[in-house]
């Protein structure tokens, strides 16, 4: 790891101020990706602004069917939340299968989506739920937030503070792990929301997480795994690597979509 300077922010304002004072700095949440990347010398932020100790960023609040998850809430807390499981078990299940138990104790929802790894789970969950990402300065629809590989709509110095969504009528998530890294080689989140059916795919797209309109249309008219059977998955925009070529990923996208629908019930 290259040398870096650590700052512990006490509030959102403090964090934003520290970030603006250190242009080459980065926000640090759970660090499960950032520290790992820095260890490999693939990232070299001059400064790290630690968000884990800002109380308002942590926790899950539920108001009717409106869910708000603080950006620094670890995956383990989301996975274990009974209140959340009562209205949206799919997101708890998703969180409970990110990384491993130790990673889930540190890694946070805000860190995950701000990084937008193309194989991360939360981007699919939030895009599938039609969630809103709240930052220190505005609210961004998930549809607008995830803009490409490791790329988001966040501006310089902008910081995710929470995510909110309406609990869907039904939702399900199914993923197929990369046999080595255990990241999603393909993960599909399906949701029947007030705004319609949404299907989001992670781990497969060469531009990161994406929605699948064909699946959405099919499920809108017939919410069943069988409805997906005849919908084509275009392999041309999917990633190819030594573990899974685009053709295999296309197959996985459909199989995981079916399984997500089945798990949603």
């Amino acid at each position, binding site marked *: 790891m290259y040398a870096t300077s650590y700052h512990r922010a006490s509030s959102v304002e403090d964090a934003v101020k520290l970030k603006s004072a250190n242009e080459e700095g980065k926000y640090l949440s759970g660090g499960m990706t950032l520290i790992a990347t820095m260890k*490999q010398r693939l990232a070299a932020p001059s400064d790290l602004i630690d968000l884990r100790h800002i109380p308002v960023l942590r926790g899950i609040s539920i108001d009717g069917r409106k869910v708000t998850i603080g950006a620094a809430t670890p995956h383990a807390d989301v996975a274990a939340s009974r209140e959340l499981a009562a209205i949206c078990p799919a997101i708890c299940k998703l969180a409970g299968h990110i990384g491993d138990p*130790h*990673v889930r*104790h*540190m890694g946070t929802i805000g860190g995950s989506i701000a990084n937008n790894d193309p194989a991360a789970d939360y981007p699919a969950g939030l895009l599938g739920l039609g969630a809103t990402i709240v930052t220190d300065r505005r609210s961004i629809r998930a549809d607008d937030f995830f803009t490409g590989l490791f790329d988001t709509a966040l501006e310089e110095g902008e910081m995710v503070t929470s995510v909110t969504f309406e609990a869907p009528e039904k939702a399900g998530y199914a993923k197929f792990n990369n046999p080595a890294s255990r990241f999603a080689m393909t993960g599909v989140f399906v949701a029947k929301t007030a705004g319609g059916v949404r299907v989001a795919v992670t781990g497969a797209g060469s531009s990161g997480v994406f929605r699948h309109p064909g699946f959405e249309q099919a499920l809108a008219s017939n919410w069943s795994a069988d409805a997906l059977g005849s919908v084509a998955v275009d392999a041309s925009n999917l990633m190819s690597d030594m573990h899974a070529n685009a053709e295999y990923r296309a197959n996985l996208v459909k199989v995981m979509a079916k399984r997500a629908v089945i798990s949603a019930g």
Partner: protein
Amino acid sequence: MTKVTLTVNGRAMSGECEDRTLLVHFIREKLGLTGTHVGCDTTQCGACVVHMDGHSVKSCSILAVQASGSSITTIEGLAGQGELHPVQAAFKEHHGLQCGFCTPGMVMTAVDLINREGGTLTEETVRAGLEGNICRCTGYHNIVKAILAADAEMATGRQAAE
């Protein structure tokens, strides 16, 4: 150099280190507790697992400065001097270790797993709970056996205490 203050195995400890120093290196090199190991660079093998404020974490992926102020338990602090925690005892009884390198992380993981899901563990949930720990010697067979045995033993202990 930054001063890092931790409660490690119940004792207040502090030391100076660079901000880039990983918690695992701080524990090993500054505190001299070499039971916590480093087996990979990508947050996967779990040889470095310690408990931070009661939860298992990978100390290779946390900066020492990030952990400052927290309470850390390492393998050395799991049981009293000369004693074995029930999980350690079960690993010995069921031959859940060979070369011993992954063992501290495995044991700390098992303790965390039993803390969270104790009394309900099955072979399947134990194997799932070990997703973040790699062992190259045992094929996991006896590790799984040891954790299930420790879980049963500790559940009996809890019942007796009630």
